């Protein structure tokens, strides 16, 4: 376990998350992709904190902020899904084409 | 290495005794309440356990096999992890984590996840319904549990359970924060879906999440519930009743006595009180319990002011 291996794991999570966020049709699955990206980001932040930050608390703070962002992302995401579903009976991204105007 | 081995053995022993204890107390209450078929409290648990152990296994149509088989084991594991966090005496703490309270707080939602998994994976209507109902209600009291536990962490100035016990040397938290224990007990009944808060495995769903399982899987599931209740009682005794503190007797004995008191109380409530209406409980949880938990937290904060 070193900074390199930790960052590679984080990179893999971000890569998979990116694939998911771009490829999924369902809103909820799309959100899962975003969550996975943030998962990688948190791991990277903690990795840097542990190996090259002399343990400064800001490293952990960043992770806490990312967690809050995740919570906000998910809450807003679900609210949007519900709102869109109410209006359009859709939970797929393509169904939103009409919203572009 | 030997220390961790002894600790693991200790947790295992408490786990086994705990399941037996829950069965004994539960049957004793049933006898006291006029249930003629409860049998001898001391021997009947062995018969029932053996009966479930030798009972044949079954399967359902197209289940999520892995989740279905794993869920009871996972639930038991989570309960065992909860037991491991309990400081049984000053020197006898299987896992004395500096963030013990947070880990306990994580075990509760994870248990909820596992209960959902158990009901969902069988691919049957009634068990699915039990799981769905349980989760939609469970989320409402997890917050209560967290606030109450932060309340006991405040005077201890630590997230470590042993520090919480030491902070009660002057006065137990049950007196210092009188709202804490009742609220916590209710959460305990919810997490082990016992009695009034049994929304997962209820009679109106023919057994809910466990309506499709038989034999050993069901035995493990029941044992998991019992251990979860024991872990809850032990954490409750630690957080509110001063844990191992007490005169004359050794700390270990005090801890066991206090755990048993909380456990007996929970089991009596489970026998006597009918299941809440889910709708009404949701209102109670958000409108009454959550504000009370806030009050408890503010109370603890004011009290902890120097």
């Amino acid at each position, binding site marked *: 376990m070193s900074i390199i291996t930790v*960052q590679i*794991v984080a*990179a*893999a*999570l*971000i*890569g*998979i998350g*990116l*694939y*998911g966020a*771009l*490829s*999924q*049709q369902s809103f*909820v*699955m799309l*959100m899962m992709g975003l*969550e996975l990206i943030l*998962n990688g980001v*948190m*791991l990277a932040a*903690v990795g840097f904190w542990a*190996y*090259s930050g*002399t*343990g400064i608390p*800001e490293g*952990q*703070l960043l*992770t*806490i902020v990312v967690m809050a962002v*995740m*919570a*906000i992302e998910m809450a*807003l995401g679900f*609210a949007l899904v519900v709102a869109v579903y109410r*209006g359009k009976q*859709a939970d*797929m991204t*393509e169904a939103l084409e*009409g919203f572009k105007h | 290495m030997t220390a961790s081995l002894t600790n693991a053995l200790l947790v295992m022993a408490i786990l086994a005794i705990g399941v037996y204890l829950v069965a004994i107390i539960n049957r004793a209450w049933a006898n006291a309440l006029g249930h003629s078929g409860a049998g001898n409290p001391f021997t009947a648990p062995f018969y029932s356990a053996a009966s479930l152990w030798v009972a044949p296994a079954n399967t359902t149509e197209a289940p*999520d096999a892995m989740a279905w088989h794993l869920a009871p084991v996972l639930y038991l594991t989570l309960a065992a992890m909860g037991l491991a966090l309990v400081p049984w005496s000053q020197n006898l703490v299987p896992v004395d*984590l*500096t*963030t013990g309270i*947070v*880990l306990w707080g*994580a075990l509760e*939602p994870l248990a*909820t*996840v596992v209960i959902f*998994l158990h009901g*969902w994976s069988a*691919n049957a209507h009634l068990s699915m319904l039990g799981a*769905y109902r349980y*989760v939609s209600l469970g*989320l409402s009291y*997890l917050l209560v549990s967290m606030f109450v536990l932060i309340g006991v962490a405040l005077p201890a100035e630590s*997230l470590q359970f042993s520090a919480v016990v030491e902070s009660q040397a002057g006065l137990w938290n049950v007196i210092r924060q009188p709202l804490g224990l009742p609220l916590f007990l209710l959460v305990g009944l919810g997490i082990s879906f016992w009695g009034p808060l049994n929304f997962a495995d209820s009679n109106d769903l023919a057994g809910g999440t466990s309506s499709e399982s038989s034999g050993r899987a069901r035995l493990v599931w029941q044992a998991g519930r019992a251990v979860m209740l024991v872990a809850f009682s032990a954490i409750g005794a630690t957080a509110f009743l001063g844990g191992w503190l007490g005169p004359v007797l050794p700390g270990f004995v005090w801890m066991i006595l206090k755990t048993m008191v909380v456990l007996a109380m929970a089991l009596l409530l489970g026998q006597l009180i009918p299941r809440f209406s889910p709708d009404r409980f949701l209102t109670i949880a958000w409108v009454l319990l959550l504000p009370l938990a806030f009050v408890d937290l503010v109370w603890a904060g004011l009290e902890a002011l120097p």
Partner: protein
Amino acid sequence: MSFVDLIFLICGAIAIFSGWRVFCTDSMVRASFFLLISFIAVGVIMLLLGAVYLGVALFFMMAVEMMVMALFMVMFMMNPAGLNPMKMVHQDKFAALAGVVAFFALSAVAVFGDFPDQPRPSDLDPVVTLGKELLGDSMLVFESAGVTLLATMIGVVAMSSHRGRYGDANAGSRPPGLEPGGMPAFSGDQEGSSGGHHHHHH
């Protein structure tokens, strides 16, 4: 290889494998549980790295989040509870390419980047320093996060409530007319009113 390295390898493999399974399993409920496993594995790695509070908090946060997610899955497609296979992917190749490029780019940064070797001191108490930071120098950041969360909560409730700005959703929530009794300011989706409800099937 030490014990810690072994655990790290196992957890890293679990995190990546289950993260990948999220997008190729055939049920959304399963997907959310795979995501949870991935998070738990990352939480364990954080514990190994010494972030005691963060690792455990991640378990807590993610268990609740994934539970809500699974609940939503079931709510939106109750029968048969997401146990039927499905396939719902678009721009598959492009997305895969983007993922691979991102992975290699970030890995390259990790491998070839020159990071200072300043490990955290072994006597550092991560929980205490984090607490002091949160309620000390970075109070503003922390409080902002809290206020943002509160605002989110209120906004989310308002957004998902069936009572919108213009009345009940199921009573055909419509904005008032531009002039009294006139056409609504925004007439919604026209096709919906002419062709009835149409469901999107993909």
